[in-house]
């Protein structure tokens, strides 16, 4: 490697990285998200209270030195529930995003690259899934199951949200497949696998990453929404959504804002941060979108 390599020659990915690093809002959002992730990971060091164990003598207590955000209706410490709740909200959002990403990229790539009957079948399947309202489908599946675990929950979100990504990936594959550089790769005798991984995916990765990021925000909201109406991760597991469901009680809503404002803000700011990062990535990958 020559010494001057980092001086002059920049790959399109390096250029995108530089553009992203110039986006102050996105960088601030990254730091905020890292802070939330850190709080979730190091929750056991930040609080001594068990988020699942209530003390029936300490129901709905106001903030004190021992319980800085007070306690909930079952006498559990709100602060520790907030920290451990971040774990579940972020885990659900992140794993559902990865799961969706895998299904979406594989199906989209197959449909877009090979076309024909497979493409037709996959597209009708996406139409079918897109036609089902998420909430109704999720509620039905949850109602049929006896116990809802995080794994089941993530699967439900993933199997209802992959079609959007499949269509995006298929679209980029369809247009990239006809590009001259893909024809050129075929002309030198490259295999389908090499063409897909070396030529098509690197050129389609921008919209895929951006959409996956924005999707993660939607998934965190979906988890919170279902938990809020009591159909999500069941108690006593803490999530931001089921902490908020406490606020369905008018007495807590009025008298104990410290119980529901922090998880509400947690959802709001986390989702906002992820969206800012997604926007930042979009601008970085496609400089034309934001002059």
């Amino acid at each position: 490697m020559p010494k001057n390599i980092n001086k002059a020659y920049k790959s399109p990915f390096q250029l995108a990285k530089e553009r992203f690093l110039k986006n102050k809002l996105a960088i601030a959002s990254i730091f905020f998200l890292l802070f939330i992730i850190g709080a979730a990971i190091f929750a056991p060091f930040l609080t001594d209270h068990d988020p699942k164990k209530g003390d029936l003598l300490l129901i709905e207590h106001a903030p004190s030195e021992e319980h800085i955000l007070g306690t909930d209706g079952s006498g559990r410490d709100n602060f520790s529930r907030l920290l451990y709740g971040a774990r579940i909200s972020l885990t659900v959002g992140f794993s559902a995003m990865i799961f969706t990403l895998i299904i979406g990229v594989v199906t989209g790539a197959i449909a877009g690259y090979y076309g024909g009957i497979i493409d037709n079948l996959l597209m009708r399947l996406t139409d079918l899934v897109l036609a089902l309202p998420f909430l109704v489908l999720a509620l039905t599946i949850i109602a049929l199951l006896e116990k809802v675990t995080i794994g089941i929950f993530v699967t439900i979100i993933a199997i209802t949200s992959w079609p959007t990504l499949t269509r995006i990936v298929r679209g980029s594959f369809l247009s990239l497949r006809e590009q001259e550089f893909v024809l050129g790769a075929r002309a030198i005798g490259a295999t389908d696998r090499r063409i897909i991984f070396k030529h098509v995916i690197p050129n389609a990765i921008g919209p895929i990453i951006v959409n996956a990021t924005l999707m993660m925000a939607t998934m965190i909201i979906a988890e919170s929404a279902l938990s809020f109406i009591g159909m999500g991760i069941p108690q006593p597991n803490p999530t931001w959504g089921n902490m908020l469901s406490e606020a369905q009680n008018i007495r807590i809503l009025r008298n104990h804002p410290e119980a529901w404002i922090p998880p509400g803000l947690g959802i709001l700011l986390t989702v906002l941060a992820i969206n800012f990062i997604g926007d930042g990535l979009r601008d970085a990958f496609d400089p034309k979108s934001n002059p």
Partner: protein
Amino acid sequence: MRNPAIAHQEKLVEVQQLKKYFPVKGGILRRQIGHVKAVDDVSFHIYKGETLGIVGESGSGKSTLGRVMLRLLEPTEGNVIFEGQNISTLTQRELRPVRRSMQIVFQDPFASLNSKMSVGELIEEPLIVQTNLSKRKRKEQAAALLEKVGLQADDRHKYPHEFSGGQRQRISIARALVLNPAFVICDEPVSALDVSIQAQVLNLMKDLQDDYRLTYLFISHDLSVVKHISDRVAVMYLGKIAEIAPKHALYTNPHHPYTKKLLSSIPTIHTNSDKNTVPKQPVMHQDIPNPANPPSGCVFRTRCPLAHDRCSIEQPTYTEIGPDHYVACHLYDKGGDTSHTS
């Protein structure tokens, strides 16, 4: 100028009755309602070491012809014999080792290079796919070839966006030549470049042809470019070859009315200085007919000033009117009405 005796040497490529029809789908059920005859019953051969130019308007099927010859598109019918082997019947897998000897340079230097790969990766890729050379060997070859096409060995760390159109086309050429092919299809390689750069790239291609003993199929809509680089020229019209002849015969003594029209449409600055120019004829006004619904008989008859009754009924076959000079026109075949011959 290459030796004219070359014309009697062995054939490297032979195209036999090649056809490529694209289906046209319509209606709610997306049923096939017809087809576009992009390449329709084309036969010709290319001698080892020569350059065969293919000229034609947009939509005449010349790019499709190149792609079908390399099996980047599957032919509807017909054979392509390359180095004595019929490559039309091979599977794509069997074809892979053959691709080593036949390469293509595309028209648009901005679309034909993967912008996410560095120049080094781009030029080494054919070696990775086709050979077992070590990384160091590959780098050496890529660097040597970069210098050969007029770039610097150090440019291999750069990315395509850092180059101009002409430089990118040089990269494409390096990529096509790194496997040391016998045959290169040049699909309008200079059409997207500035005129000043065109000559540089064309001369580079000529030099490389001599150095590497290449055979070119040179596709272009630009008659002057084709004249500059070709040994023989084929004129394509609506998926068919109208006339094919050695360069000098075609440019000084064109026979097909379409060739005459094309040659007279070359803009010149000094109208009377070039004795070889064909007398001026009025430029064609009509557009090329829809290839999904071509005229009956001779496909050129709708725009031909000399069309007569027979042209709408019967498709013309090739008549040899000189050494290696064939024309598909009823004016020249023996059974035809020759009273209109100009």
